[in-house]
């Protein structure tokens, strides 16, 4: 017993734990932050989940060509705990992105980025972008058809850049096409380059927290005055401050336990995202879709006028990064309280509303053709006239319903056709179908005169009243 104690004392003396590390842990922090400040440490906890589950996955994952997909199948279906680990890595990534954004939002709303903590904010913004880089490269390491096409889309986006675009695109692909050198690059970036940057960024971020101290809760009567702030902060802390360990830290630990439980719980109950079909770039039946973090961006790119597109694809990430970094340069003193910063509150409300709406849009993707649409059931066609019945078949067969909704069946790219009979007469329908129109192809070359006539006959029955009659007659027919 005494021997162990003396060994520990020796270690403590030679390592300097009590001299250096303990004072850091016990540094004095404001006592009024309570639960507001748990998001940063929880982000760190999610990062630890990522590092540890990632190392475990890397012991089995084969980062090359076809073998990557085979190893993913092995991890998911055969390896003991493999499914759980993939799930933890996926929900850990989700948690890390969400928590980092919540943490940033809290810091922004409380204006904790003001003097002297400008660099805390800037380093956090850089780490956030690296984390988004991790989620994108991580999604690609799930090397199925979606992974292959996500790389292609990334290369095409980069290829839009003037002059250097094609060179960057070929660096992303590791050649002129997707192939054996593509995945290995993303693997190296995902497991070495970006984690290294995150470790360095977190190191700087935490060092700055120690150097400048944790900010107090905003007080409307205490605007930040750079000339006197540090003295005021120190003197207030002397009166009311508490040691971080363990008076403040226990809340961080409790919240981190909840986050970890949520990550493991999701991994157990929902499992990792399903693997798509194998990574074969010549398989055209893929339906590429980014992971949810980027649905909002996907939505923006779909709804932009094409002439603005290149500028937004290339400009948005740069403007976003610079815009966030300059926040504390823009305003590093004055009020911190949200009640005195209506523009800040408005920005957050607007930003989150836009993010949620665009994310929902990105998920629904009404701009994409719906290739899986079913033919119209007979009771919705509501007619036994052979021309109309044939017309209804043609509307499905010729792909009209990929983009047009007819009585609840079909895509949403183009206008709904459920009451087209009211909006266009026979001549109008023929002109429209033959010539196409804004965002609609011309079908003149793919329809015979008889087919066109049947199709128009069917479309003319699409009026609210005809549907009423149709549903009445089906009800009457049912005993």
């Amino acid at each position, binding site marked *: 017993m005494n021997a162990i104690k003396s060994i520990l004392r020796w270690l403590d003396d030679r390592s300097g734990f009590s001299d250096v590390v303990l004072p850091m842990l016990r540094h004095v922090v404001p006592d009024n932050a309570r639960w507001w400040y748990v998001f940063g440490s929880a982000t760190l906890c999610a990062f630890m989940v990522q590092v540890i589950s990632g190392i475990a996955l890397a012991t089995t994952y084969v980062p090359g*060509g076809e*073998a990557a997909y085979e190893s993913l199948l092995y991890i998911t279906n055969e390896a003991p705990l493999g499914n759980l680990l993939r799930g933890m890595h996926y929900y850990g990534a989700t948690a890390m992105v969400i928590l980092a954004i919540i943490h940033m939002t809290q810091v922004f709303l409380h204006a904790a980025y003001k003097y002297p903590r400008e660099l805390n904010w800037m380093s956090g913004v850089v780490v956030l972008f690296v984390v988004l880089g991790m989620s994108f490269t991580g999604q690609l390491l799930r090397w199925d058809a979606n992974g292959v096409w996500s790389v292609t889309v990334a290369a095409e986006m980069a290829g839009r850049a003037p002059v250097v675009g094609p060179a960057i695109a070929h660096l992303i692909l590791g050649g002129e096409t997707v192939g054996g050198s593509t995945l290995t690059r993303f693997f190296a970036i995902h497991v070495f380059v970006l984690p290294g940057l995150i470790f360095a960024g977190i190191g700087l971020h935490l060092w700055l927290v120690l150097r400048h101290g944790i900010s107090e809760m905003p007080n409307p009567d205490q605007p930040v005055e750079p000339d006197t702030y540090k003295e005021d902060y120190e003197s207030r802390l002397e009166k009311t401050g508490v040691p971080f360990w363990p008076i403040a830290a226990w809340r961080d630990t409790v919240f981190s336990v909840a986050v970890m439980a949520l990550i493991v719980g999701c991994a157990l109950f929902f499992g990792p995202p399903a693997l798509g079909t194998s990574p074969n770039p*010549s*398989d*055209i*039946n893929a339906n590429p879709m980014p992971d949810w973090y980027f649905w909002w961006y996907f939505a923006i790119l779909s709804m932009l006028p*094409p002439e603005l597109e290149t500028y937004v694809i290339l400009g948005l990430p740069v403007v976003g990064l610079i815009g966030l970094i300059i926040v504390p340069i823009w305003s590093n003193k004055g009020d911190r309280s949200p009640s005195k910063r209506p523009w800040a509150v408005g920005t957050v409300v607007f930003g989150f509303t836009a993010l949620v709406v665009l994310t929902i849009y990105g998920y629904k993707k009404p*701009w*994409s053709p719906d290739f899986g649409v079913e033919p119209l059931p007979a009771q919705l066609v509501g007619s036994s006239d052979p021309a109309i019945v044939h017309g209804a078949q043609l509307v499905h067969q010729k792909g009209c319903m990929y983009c047009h909704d007819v009585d609840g069946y079909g895509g949403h790219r183009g206008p709904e056709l459920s009451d087209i009979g009211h909006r266009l007469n026979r001549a109008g329908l023929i002109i429209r179908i033959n010539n196409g129109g804004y965002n609609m192809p011309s079908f003149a070359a793919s329809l015979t005169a008889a087919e066109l006539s049947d199709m128009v006959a069917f479309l003319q029955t699409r009026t609210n009243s005809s549907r009423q009659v149709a549903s009445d007659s089906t009800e009457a027919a049912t005993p």
Partner: protein
Amino acid sequence: MQEDTVDSDADRRSFLTRLSVGLAGLIGAVISLPPIGYVLSPLVRKPPRKWRDVGSLEQFPMGETKLVQFQDASSTAWAGDTAKTGAWLRRTGESEFIAFSVNCRHLGCPVRWIKDAKLFMCPCHGGVYYQDGEVAAGPPPEALARYPVRVVDGNVEIETSPIPLTTNDVA
């Protein structure tokens, strides 16, 4: 005399500082230049283009558009299926073909040929092309790219090409 010593001491310090910074820079350059060159090598190492057989003439009825697959020029031993490329091959004459790249010109997603509508459609953002590859609707800025295609001894061959980017046309 004493001032001389201070001066020479300062000189010595500034020389040693510069020496160390310079040597550290040299170490940095020597250990980082080869890796940078290695990572950038796809820019200079252009694989030779190769003609790939995609099937015999009779497999492609006149006027039809069929999906064909071929091996990229730069396939590495471990690439497997990932070194394949698809093309939509359309027979327009006795020995005339058009080989469309499957990549949508908007952001590169794979377009599908909808036979009955005689249209290519993209699942990502709704780009649509006519059977001749011209844009019919949606965001694509230009027509589908084409691969060089030829008929040799009754076999159809496609020439491997880089992925078409909106900023550098194939063929």
